[in-house]
């Protein structure tokens, strides 16, 4: 079967795009340099969180929430997704003012958050540090197992007719009259009218090679997990500012992240012991009962982040038929299912019902 669109990058975004394109009757070919869903998509925190996102992200994020809520119908398995709710903790009164103001701001956009004060936190969560100033509670947010999500979308996409190749490194994309000539490291070459660039931390370089510049960098979020513990907390949580984010999976392990790992070799990141120790101290401050737990593993991965901290999603201003979706660190896991749907709409209908203002790559070049 001759493909009519190439997707570069088999993370959750690329796999979701492949699924939605195949179901729309297209013939996508997905090329993944390593294993499907094994980079940032597979090693991230696993938070499926809408609260905290910028106002312009909310339509996309709420659309994605609807996909997460119906995952079994869409990909045939739940990827351990639980609509557990998410708490955004405020350590100080000033932080509480900030998260409460955010709750006011996003209410008209359809994101319902409950502002709770310190006394209410202590009533609902007696295990937390008693000095917290408050939090906002997002009942519709959740968490899932990132290691399962990308491969699950890929299996569903294959079943729908998508061709998915792993260990397939794209070495060049050349604009030609018929669209784009895509060359892979094994010497194969395919020409297609459309290309989706969902290559994660490697996507900015690919975009730049085609003249679309977006200043970004790779980052390595540092993650820690404890041994299985008795139930301690059922929701996912984060801290306003740059504090710890944490959840307990159903098996009982507490997973948390804060700070960065480091690059050990090109394309290989490793966790940092100093960062892990700082995150462990912060987690023990937040949940004093964790002090008696053991940490069994730390890890990191390579994620892409753009200069303004927001992703790029949408068409190339320079090449008809080229679409970008990257810079998704801190955004991608929750957004990816809907990004795939939106990319399929852009590639097939030329537009999406979901507003994408604010995601355009032109924000880095205009003016």
């Amino acid at each position, binding site marked *: 079967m001759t493909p009519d669109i190439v997707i570069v990058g088999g993370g959750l975004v690329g796999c979701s795009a492949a699924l939605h394109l195949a179901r729309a009757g297209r013939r996508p070919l997905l090329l993944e340099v390593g*294993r499907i869903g*094994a980079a940032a998509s*597979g090693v991230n925190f696993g938070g499926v969180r809408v609260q905290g996102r910028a106002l312009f992200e909310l339509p996309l994020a709420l659309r994605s929430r609807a996909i997460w809520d119906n995952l079994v119908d869409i990909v045939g398995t739940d990827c351990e997704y639980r609509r557990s709710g998410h708490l955004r903790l405020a350590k100080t009164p000033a932080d509480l003012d900030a998260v409460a103001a955010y709750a006011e701001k996003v209410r008209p956009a359809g994101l319902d958050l409950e502002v709770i004060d310190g006394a209410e936190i202590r009533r609902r969560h007696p295990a937390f540090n008693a000095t917290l100033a408050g939090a906002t509670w997002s009942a519709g947010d959740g968490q899932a197992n990132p*290691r*399962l999500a990308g*491969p699950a979308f890929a*299996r569903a996409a294959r079943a729908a007719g998508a061709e998915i190749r*792993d260990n397939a490194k794209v070495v060049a994309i050349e604009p030609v009259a018929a669209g784009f000539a895509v060359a892979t490291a094994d010497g194969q070459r395919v020409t297609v009218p459309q290309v989706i660039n969902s290559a994660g931390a490697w996507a900015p370089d690919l975009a730049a090679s085609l003249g679309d510049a977006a200043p970004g960098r790779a980052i390595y979020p540092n993650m820690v997990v*404890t*041994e*299985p513990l008795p139930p301690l907390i059922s929701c996912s949580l984060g801290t306003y500012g740059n504090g710890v984010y944490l959840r307990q999976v159903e*098996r009982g392990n507490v997973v948390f992240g804060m700070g960065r790992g480091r690059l*050990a070799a090109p394309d290989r990141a*490793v*966790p*940092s*012991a*100093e960062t*892990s*120790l700082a995150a*462990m*101290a912060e*987690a*023990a401050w937040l949940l004093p009962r*964790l*002090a*008696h*737990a*053991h*940490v*069994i*593993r*730390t*890890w990191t991965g390579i994620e892409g982040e753009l200069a303004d901290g927001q992703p790029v999603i949408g068409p190339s201003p320079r090449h008809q038929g080229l679409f970008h979706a990257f810079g998704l660190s801190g955004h991608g896991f929750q957004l990816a299912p809907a990004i795939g749907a939106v990319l399929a709409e852009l590639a097939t209908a030329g537009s999406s019902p979901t507003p994408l203002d604010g995601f355009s790559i032109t924000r880095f070049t205009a003016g």
Partner: protein
Amino acid sequence: MTAVIIVGAGPAGMAAALTLVEAGLRPIVVDEAQRAGGQIFRRPPPGFTRPPAALYGADAAAATRLHLAFDALGDRIDYRPQTLVWAVEPDAVHLQGPQGRVRLDRGPLLLATGATDRLLPVDGWTKPGVFSLGGSQVALKAQGVAIGRRVAFCGTGPLLYLVAYQYAKAGAEVAAVLDTSAFGDGIRALPLLAADPAKLARGIYYLGWLRAHGVPVHHGVRPLTVHGESVTGLTWRDAGRRLNETRCDALALGFGLRSETQLADLAGVPFRFDPIRRQYLPDIDQDGRAPAGAVYLAGDGAAVRGAAAAETAGRLAALALAADLGRPVDTAARDALRGRMARFERFARGLDAAFPFPVDLLDTATDDTLLCRCEAVTVGTMRHAVGELGAEDVNRAKAFVRPGMGRCQGRMCGLATSELHARLRGLPPDQAGRLRGQAPVKPVPLA
């Protein structure tokens, strides 16, 4: 200069410390145990009174000599017992011990991290009363206790006969020695085993002693099911495929040893697959030197060859390290050590031939046999991960269904998981890849 750090105080680590002190260095020696000795030369806690001859048998003289020499080093080394190295980074080594958490600047590293039992899942192997073979020896050596009153020993490797002999000598009833290797395997390995006639003679002595004392010894055995809530017996097939049952109240299971290699992994040492030992091992030169990063490996943590080889390798690696630091080295002594290592390697290959790993047990394991006990992953779940989910390698299987993701981080179940993965795909064991190491190499307290 940043101090040399030796990790592990078994025969390799102790010998390395002695050699480095002779070369005028003052290494830091970090060891998890309360007292230096490692596993084979493990010392009981203070106050225990079993004599060396009872603890170490034929190795008593060698063990005592090393213990005394190491103890005599005093403050010529910076010795840190009861301390875990939980992370190695490009510029630091992180410890957890009686002083709490300590960060050391990373100087040259000499890793002598030893080995643990190599396990294979057998139906019921996680029941109370089942111990690893090495664990059952530790119970006897360190605490002076047997794992049961009537103990069966099953698996393969020289330890099988040694521990059964030690148990019998200590007064336990040995219900049976059930060796998965065929009698002919041992005969065919004789030319290689002749590289160490004394050890070969000792192995034959243990076998003869057990038989002479009425202990049933069977070859070509395949263990099937461990019975009882707590162990009451083991069903097994003999070489003629007949079903047998051995009644016992404890079972020691072990299928050889595996090298502990996580710290080498964290230190950035490259690995290569050793088809004889069926494990990815640090890729080092004949003296134990890694290609980069001032890392040296010695003893069973580099490749399993036993205590005497570990002591030799510890000296050799320490000489390499000293030479790399510009210290004068006695090259004649080094060459003699290299010659001994070649003989140890020949003997080790003989042992591997005499006691082949019974990997076919994985083919006949029932779906509900536990593979990874930390995460309660069964053999059937692993078959599903490879068959239906398409897990391409062992790390993918871990990502999909969690073998190796629990407290032991695959140190216990990892090799069996790799072997099973490869067999399910009809490929040689190296094709499963190897579980990536991550800090902490063992659990550390959160606060």
